[in-house]
């Protein structure tokens, strides 16, 4: 085995914060190494140093035995290191080919050599099975295709070492599986890969070796065969993290009922006759492959859309006006799917975000003026009660990490004691510690007597939290099955729309 990459003794400080301390790791040819760690463990900083975006305070980076000059991306690219960023570095107004070719030719060449570039790109697509239309505008591509463009960009620069920063963060489960198959194929052709992740499942499935980073230090290194998910979770978090267990449900009266809801797609998938009941003190899990209507369903229950036909009843009373304030007034708490785009306003403060959806209530405003003191106090209470770390009442919410932002959103939704809680993808992109906290809160709301509608693509999460599970396929819901009877095979069949096969004993509840 040839050693293609070696980082030795990397230390990087930002002011008083030490992001990396004496980190060493290596990569052999044809290997896939996972860099595992929670958000803030220093994974991205380490890779940015490798790629020359940051200069390390101490330590060296060697590619094929030769030391890289610090702080120069160009040098890293020339040495054969390619980086696929978590947030795609693409220009939506330019074509795929333009995006890939930028910066690869001498700037003062009088004509860009397009046909040669096109041929080289076609060769790469062919070799690695990554197909994208080179003339398509990036704006018209799906997320999965954008990622392919990012990978092709690195390969076009003749990368032999590929760094992928949380490559599955924005992908659906299927896209992620396809991605890892492609990556495996690449190592077969001599490439070596490091991918950054905090997801234990994919690390176990895709990596040969795992390097665990915590608090900026390497705390462990394991061959994947010689470790387990539980061990890695403990190494990553530094203590045993157990996701909370679900006590038996004590369902009460029906709090939410949907009768044959139909809504033709408007920016999302349609609903084609959705009916269900949700009782107080229980959690109904809705699983499904993204794009099957779950976003529309969550939006409808949250008051964002009105149905074309059908009825939505809250505690037996039909909702006639489908607006967000009416939904909130009816006692529906909401955890939106995309916390950055819909859940918060990045440049407003924590307290503004915390009270905005109830700003007209007498608690937070009087005669058209905001009661700042009351709003700040209420926010401080959420911060304390929900363990929101990293910023104060008056800080911009943008500064919070994903997990802390989600805790604040949970606190905002639950502090109003809703009878119904709609939680859409509540733990997407969070690390283990934060997931455990979110799960505990959802179970708490259920224990208090709220009915929880949990919409998620994460099977483990749905099984852990729900009492009953339905699958959503093509805008229709499967019959419900008790989650204690569910297993991955059965849920897989349900998500594929094979309801009869999945549950001979399925009964509409």
């Amino acid at each position, binding site marked *: 085995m040839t050693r293609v990459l070696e980082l030795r003794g990397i230390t990087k400080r930002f002011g008083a914060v030490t992001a990396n301390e004496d980190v060493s790791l290596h990569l052999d040819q044809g290997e896939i190494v996972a860099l595992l760690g929670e958000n803030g463990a220093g994974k991205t900083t380490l890779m940015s140093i490798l790629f020359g*975006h940051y200069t390390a305070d101490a330590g060296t980076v060697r590619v094929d035995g030769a030391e890289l000059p610090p702080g120069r991306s160009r040098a890293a690219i020339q040495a054969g290191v390619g980086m696929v960023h978590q947030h795609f570095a693409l220009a939506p107004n330019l074509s795929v080919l333009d995006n890939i070719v*930028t910066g690869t030719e001498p700037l003062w060449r009088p004509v860009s050599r397009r046909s040669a570039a096109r041929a080289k790109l076609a060769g790469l697509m062919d070799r690695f099975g990554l197909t994208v239309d080179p003339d398509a505008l990036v704006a018209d591509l799906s997320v999965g295709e954008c990622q392919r463009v990012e990978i092709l960009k690195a390969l076009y620069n003749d990368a032999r070492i590929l760094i992928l920063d949380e490559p599955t963060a924005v992908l659906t489960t299927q896209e992620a599986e396809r991605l890892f198959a492609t990556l495996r194929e690449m190592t077969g052709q001599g490439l070596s890969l490091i991918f950054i992740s905090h997801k234990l499942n994919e690390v176990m499935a895709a990596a040969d070796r795992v390097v665990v980073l915590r608090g900026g230090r390497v705390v462990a290194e394991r061959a994947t065969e010689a470790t387990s998910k539980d061990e890695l979770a403990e190494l990553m978090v530094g203590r045993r993290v157990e996701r909370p267990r679900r006590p038996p449900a004590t369902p009460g009266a029906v709090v939410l009922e949907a009768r044959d809801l139909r809504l033709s797609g408007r920016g999302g998938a349609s609903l084609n006759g959705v009916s269900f009941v949700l009782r107080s003190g229980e959690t109904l899990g809705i699983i499904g492959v993204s794009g099957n209507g779950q976003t529309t369903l969550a939006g409808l229950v949250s008051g964002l859309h009105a149905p074309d036909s059908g009825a939505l009843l809250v505690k037996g009373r039909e909702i006639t006006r489908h607006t967000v304030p009416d939904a909130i007034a009816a006692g529906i708490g909401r955890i939106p799917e995309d916390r950055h785009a819909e859940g918060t306003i990045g440049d407003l403060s924590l307290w503004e975000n915390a009270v905005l959806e109830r700003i007209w209530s007498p608690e937070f405003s009087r005669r058209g003026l905001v009661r700042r003191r009351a709003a700040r106090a209420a926010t401080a209470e959420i911060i304390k009660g929900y363990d929101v770390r990293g910023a104060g009442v008056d800080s911009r919410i943008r500064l919070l990490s994903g997990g802390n932002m989600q805790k604040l959103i949970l606190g905002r939704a639950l502090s109003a004691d809703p009878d119904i809680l709609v939680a859409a993808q509540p733990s997407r992109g969070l690390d283990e510690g934060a997931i455990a906290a979110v799960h505990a809160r959802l179970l708490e709301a259920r224990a208090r007597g709220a009915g929880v509608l949990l919409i998620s693509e994460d099977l483990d999460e749905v099984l852990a939290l729900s009492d009953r599970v339905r699958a959503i396929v093509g805008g229709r819901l499967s019959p419900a099955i008790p989650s204690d009877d569910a297993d991955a095979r059965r849920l897989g069949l349900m998500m594929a729309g094979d309801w009869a096969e999945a549950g001979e004993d399925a009964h509409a509840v």
Partner: protein
Amino acid sequence: MSVIFDILAAVGLWEAVLRIATPLIFGTLGVLLCERVGVLNLGIEGIMTFGAMVGWLTVYSGGDLWTGMAAAALGGAAFGLLHAILTVPLGLSQHVTGLGITLFASSFAYYVFRLAVPVATSPPTVEPFRPLDVFGLADLPVVGPVLFGQTAPTYLALALVVVLAWVIYRTPLGLALRMAGENPHALDAQGVDPIRLRIWAIMAGSALMAMGGAFLTLAAFNSFFPTMVQGRGWICVALVVFASWRPGRALLGALLFAFFDAFQLRLQTVVDGVPYQLFLMAPYLLSILALIVMARRARVPQALMQPYRRGER
């Protein structure tokens, strides 16, 4: 109707169109270059005034006409550098900085002019660029004077349209320029420094703006007066939106505006009973209309007015 027909049939009108369009072409290309790398340059109005003054003063003090154009370009680039330093590495508001530069450059131009030419009842003049006779074709009927009898800077402006279009769409440099205005993070990740690229592009764009100003003193009016730019800079900013940030369409927009302007000037003299201000307004009104129609389809550089800082999203 016959009045309108008479105006349209006169060669003088069409001759004037290219002449009026020339400073607009320079200015529009300058704005376009700045905005393609993601920086709004509202300094244009002042930079044009300054260019007009520097060009004129150079020739007035004995330099030849092309030295005057070059001096104007250098002066424009200097103000471009100032704008670039404030908006690119320092990331200040591009609106405020641009307007500040317009105020400063206009006043500074007048100040220098007054120092150099203390008192004058009528503004002193210079010997301007003369119409050329390209390929000896200027005597052809109609097309001769219109296409082959313009002054040299007009042909330079037309050539620059082609050059800029070539650079932007056909060269690696142009792709990097576009990427700097679309996603500077991506450019940086590919190993090209967006900060340096932006600074150079703003300097070059500002030099073009100043040459547009110099055309006014060295080919159109032969003398300098402080209010001579008269909003041409702002028109250029609007024309770039009209052009959807493409050099070819920028030329089209400049010609269209110049046509309206030339047309209304002639209309003023033949139509009675209508306040002349209405005619003066016409090209601007028509520009706004054209802008509304075209801007809906415009594809704005995605990083326009967004300062780039490494490591920040």
